[in-house]
Each structure stands twice: as structure tokens, then as C-alpha cells.
């Protein structure tokens, strides 16, 4: 009897021990995951902040050996590329989301679209880059900003479609029914009632997609190609921030490494701002006014 009790006590102590150990391991895992993030941020600020000055935002790269210079052309180039990408990706993506949430809800076709969008989201960006390369760059005969924008644009479509669908699904049916009940045509109800109600969420979804493609380098290597000089022409190769960071990072020059760190810091600040904004809007309850 006594032995039995001792055994039980020992077993229960062991179970508690295992429980504590598991808790400890989970905490350790969390710390190990946060460590690289902190390391990356600390290094970016440490290495990048000292190189961030007015010249960085106003000058184009100097030739090797000369100090100074900046990445103004890359920042502008990224802006041009992202503008083209948004012009392609946002309308088509939102349209697809509207179809999934409003017209095709529950149909086999919509499920297939949703599934394909999710799978397409996981296709490596470099594969998209090759497709655009052989679709536009080879027939055209030269690299161009336009092909880079198309490459980024088609990467935005699946993300925008899925977030738009999710946001539209959160709009209460009563809102749609009220609009339709008042005799508004369906297209009008979708555009000015449903989509408008969900617009904060849809916009944040677009911004997430935007932030994602803003950091893409792989498809730009053989579409936009990069450019050491000013260029805003859609028909010419164009510089882009991530591309420039890549080129500078693998170069052997300290001056260029410095610029790469500064560029990465700028890119990260933009992306953190976008993600924080998204979180802020989401936490405030996007559809508070509607429901």
C-alpha cells in the first residue's frame, strides 16, 4: 500500500517535471525565434543608420572608389515598378475577390479559383520572373521597367484576391440585403455598399501584398535588370531598391556594403510601417461602423 502511494507520488512528480520541461522548451523556442529578428533589426540600425543622410535620398550611385552617393534612382525606380504592379495587381485582384465573395460563393468554380490562388501564392517569385521574361523581355529584345512591373503585378493578384474575399465575407448579409431591398442594382450595391463597407480591410490587404512585392528581388533580376543612372522610362531597364541592395551586398566594396545596409534599413522601415498600419486597422475592428 505504502509502496503504491510512493510510486504514485513519484509518477506524479515526474509528470509535473515533464510539464515544466515542456513549458521551458516552448519558452526557449520562442526566445530562439525572436533572437534573429532582434539581431537583424539591431544590425540594420547599427550599420544602416550611419549611412542614412540626405545624399542617400537625393544622389545616384557614384562610381566605385568615390565616396558618397546614394540610391535615389533605386527609390524612384521601386516606386515606378510598384505603381505599375499595383495598376495591374490591385484591380484584377479585387475583381477576383468580389467574384469569390459575391457571385461564385459556394460554387465549384469559386472553390477551384480559391485553391489555385492559394497554390499560386506559394509559387516561387523567380518562376514568375522567368515566365514574364520569356513572355515580354524575349519578344521585346531588352529588359524594361514594364516587364518588372508586370512580374510584380501578377504576384500581387492571388494575395489581393484572397484578402478581398475574406474582408467581403465579413460584411453582414443584412447590409447587402438592405441595399438590394431599396432597389439598387446589384453591381452598384457591390461596388458602393459592400466593397465600401469592407474598404479598410481591402486596402490593408492591398498594402500587405504591396509590402510583399516591394521587397522582391528575384523576378527583377531579369525583367527590370537594374540601372546605375536615372531612368523613369517604362521601356528601359530601371533600378530598384531590393535589386540594388543585392548587387551592393555581393560586391567587394565597403562603400557599397554601407549603402546596402542603408537601403535595407529604408526598405524595412517602409515594410514595418505597412505591417503596423495593417495591424492597427485590423485591431480597431475594420467593420465596426457596419455591423
Amino acid at each position, binding site marked *: 500500500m505504502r509502496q503504491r502511494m510512493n510510486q504514485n507520488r513519484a509518477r506524479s512528480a515526474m509528470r509535473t517535471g515533464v510539464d515544466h520541461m515542456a513549458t521551458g522548451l516552448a519558452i526557449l523556442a520562442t526566445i530562439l525565434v525572436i533572437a534573429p529578428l532582434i539581431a537583424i533589426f539591431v544590425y540594420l540600425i547599427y550599420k544602416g543608420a550611419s549611412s542614412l543622410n540626405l545624399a542617400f535620398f537625393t544622389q545616384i550611385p557614384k562610381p566605385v572608389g568615390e565616396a558618397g552617393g546614394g540610391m535615389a534612382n533605386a527609390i524612384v525606380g521601386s516606386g515606378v515598378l510598384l505603381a505599375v504592379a499595383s495598376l495591374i495587381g490591385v484591380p484584377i485582384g479585387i475583381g477576383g475577390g468580389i467574384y469569390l465573395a459575391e457571385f461564385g460563393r459556394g460554387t465549384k468554380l469559386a472553390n477551384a479559383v480559391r485553391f489555385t490562388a492559394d497554390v499560386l501564392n506559394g509559387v516561387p*517569385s523567380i518562376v514568375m520572373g522567368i515566365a514574364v521574361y520569356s513572355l515580354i523581355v524575349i519578344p521585346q529584345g531588352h529588359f524594361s521597367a514594364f516587364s518588372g512591373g508586370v512580374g510584380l503585378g501578377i504576384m500581387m493578384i492571388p494575395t489581393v484576391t484572397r484578402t478581398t474575399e475574406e474582408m467581403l465575407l465579413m460584411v453582414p448579409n443584412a447590409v447587402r440585403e438592405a441595399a438590394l431591398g431599396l432597389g439598387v442594382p*446589384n453591381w452598384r450595391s457591390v461596388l458602393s455598399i459592400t466593397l465600401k463597407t469592407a474598404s479598410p480591410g481591402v486596402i490593408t490587404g492591398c498594402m500587405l501584398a504591396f509590402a510583399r512585392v516591394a521587397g522582391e528581388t528575384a523576378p527583377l533580376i531579369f525583367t527590370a535588370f537594374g540601372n546605375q543612372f536615372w531612368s523613369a522610362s517604362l521601356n528601359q531597364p530601371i533600378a530598384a531598391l531590393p535589386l540594388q541592395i543585392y548587387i551592393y551586398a555581393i560586391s567587394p566594396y565597403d562603400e557599397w556594403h554601407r549603402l546596402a545596409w542603408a537601403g535595407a534599413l529604408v526598405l524595412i522601415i517602409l515594410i514595418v510601417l505597412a505591417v503596423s498600419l495593417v495591424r492597427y486597422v485590423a485591431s480597431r475592428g475594420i467593420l465596426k461602423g457596419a455591423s
Partner: protein
Amino acid sequence: MSEIRIPKLEVAATPQSEPSGVGSGNPASVGTGPEAVRASTSISEVRRFLLARGNSAFADRLFGGTMMACAMSIFGIVLLIATELVMRSQLSWHKFGFAFFYKFNVDPDTHLPVFWDPVSGTFYALPFLYGTLVSSLLALLIAVPLAIGVAIFLTEMCPKFLRGPLGFVTELLAAIPSVVYGLWAVFVLVPLLREHVNPVFIAIFNNSVVVKLFGWTGIVGDKGFFGGSNYGLGMMAAGVILAVMILPIISSLTREVMNAVPNSQREAVLALGATRWEMIRTGVLRNARIGIVGSVILGLGRALGETMAVAMVIGNRPEISKSLLSLGYSMASVIANEFSEASDNLYLSALIEIGLALFIVTIIVNALARVLVWAVTRGTPARVQ
């Protein structure tokens, strides 16, 4: 016609069958009831009734058609990518056939295998397959335990006030661009591995006692996993940076899958006298395992396709070596590095064929992962469907 519709309309208008599950937008609530599923997957009766009144309008049809065209463009993109890749890789496919993925030439002088030599027109993709596979598996090996640990901590143990910030931090980790990871890896991670981490592994794996005991396994010693010279760059660095990059994807999906496990499961296990860990193991992990496997596969898909960070640290040498310290090459990074200098058509075509292989593999892997995750979270309103 209206006699048929009106009774349906009345049924639909009662509060029970018009659930607010869709509107409430609470992903943690498990709407497995039939109403919740119906509401999230089909158009309500009221709306159908109202739509039936005016859907003959030309503008409505036009609008619906345009939206459908937008949705169909997703199929269009997939088809476009597939046809472009298949067409442009014809040259290499005709020249090498399926041997492209497993054969190699042997150098007559040194008797070493030659896989990839643009000068002599030799293009075999085996080292890239090997590099992609090994670096991705290494990444999974590192990332999966950590990601599941984080997910467990965040869903089951974490105090409420930490949950938000920690979730945000992991989300940020997913938002950092590949090229920034690469930059950090080149200047911080690689020196760290070269000077502090790799020497430890080398000391353990090449220890004379260890070699004597386990030499027969081929894992230790000069020809083992940590033999050869220590550059810092190489498979190990690629695996570690890939692990950091896929961690947030695996952990956020695992969290979602674990959130989808009904609370009654947890309560039941706890009521039987289990400790918290036993509750997590038997009540949560066991129920969520299919979804967890799905998220791991999704992470694998991401790792297979990662380009820039890997290209910057893997060393870019088309070789196959058992050592994790040796330089390697991956499918995505060879395309990124050599595409713009591919001068002749066969070279270009071979690179595009590698891209095609990558496309097919990632599509299969992602589809599989989505199906698995979807099987678990089916009832919830749909972030990962």
C-alpha cells in the same frame, strides 16, 4: 414562382438560420455547425430572392462577367507560366531528355563528375536538385521544432498581454524581404557560423573517439557531414537562413490549426487529470497533427523556392558533397545567378527547364499542404482554406 420563394424567405429570415458567424469575424470560434458552414459557403436566401428580381439588367451581367474574368485570370496566370516555361525549355528537353535530372559527364583527366559546364555545353541539374533538397530539409529540421514550440507557447501558455506583441513579431519576421535576410546572413550569420558554430560541430564530428566509434556510419570523420574546409558559406548557412525564413509561416499556420481544436477537447483532457503538457500532447497536438503536417509541407514549399538569401550564402558551386560545410547550389539560385549571363539558347533553355521543375514541384507541394491544412480548419471562417 413567388409562392415557392416566399416560404423559404420566411425560414431564412428567422434569427437561428441567419447566423452572424460570418459577420462576427472571430477566427477562433469553431463554427462547425451546419448553419455556419452554409452561411460561409452560399448566398443567403433573402439575397437570392432580391437578386432574382433585378438580375436581368445588362449592367449586372456585365459587372458579374468582368469580376469573373478577373477571377479566371488566376487560372490564366498559371496556364501562362506553364506554357511559357514548357515552350522555352524545349531545346534542353530535346537535347538531354529526362537524363537532365540525374546524369553527368566524367572529366577525362581528373575523373571527377562534371554537371554544369556552359563552355562545353554540359547541362545536368543534379547538383541543384541536391542542393535545394538538402538545404530545405536542413531548414525543416531546424525550423519545425522551434515553430511548433512557438505555436504551443502562443496558443496554450502565453499570458494574454504577450500574445499580441509576439504574434506581431513573428508576423514581422515573415515580412522581411529575402534580400535583407541575405544581407544579414552574409555579414553576420556566415562569420558567426564560421568562427563559433561550425568549429564546435567539427570538433565533435571529427573527434578521434567519435570517429573510431561511429566511423562506419559515414556521418562523422573527414568524409562525413562536417568534413572538409570551413568557409562559413555553404549548405549549413543556407539551411539556417532558410529556417529563419520559413519559421513564421509554419508557426502561424500551426497556431491557426491549433486554435481550430475545440476548447471542449482541452477541457475534457484536463478534467481527466492531465497536466498542461499532457493536455497539449493528447488533446491539441494529436487533433491538429494533419494540419501541422500541412503547414510543415507549406514551409517546405517556401524553402524550395527561396532565391535571394540562398543565392547569397550557399556558395554557388555546382557540386555534390556530403559535407554540410561544403559549397553548393540550389535550383532557384542558379536561375537568379546565371540567367542574365546565359548567352546561348541551350544555356537559357536549361535554366528555364530548372525553373519548370521548380514550378511543378512547388505546385504539388503547395497543393498537398493546402489540402491538409484545409482538412483541419474546414469549419472555421477561412484564413487558410
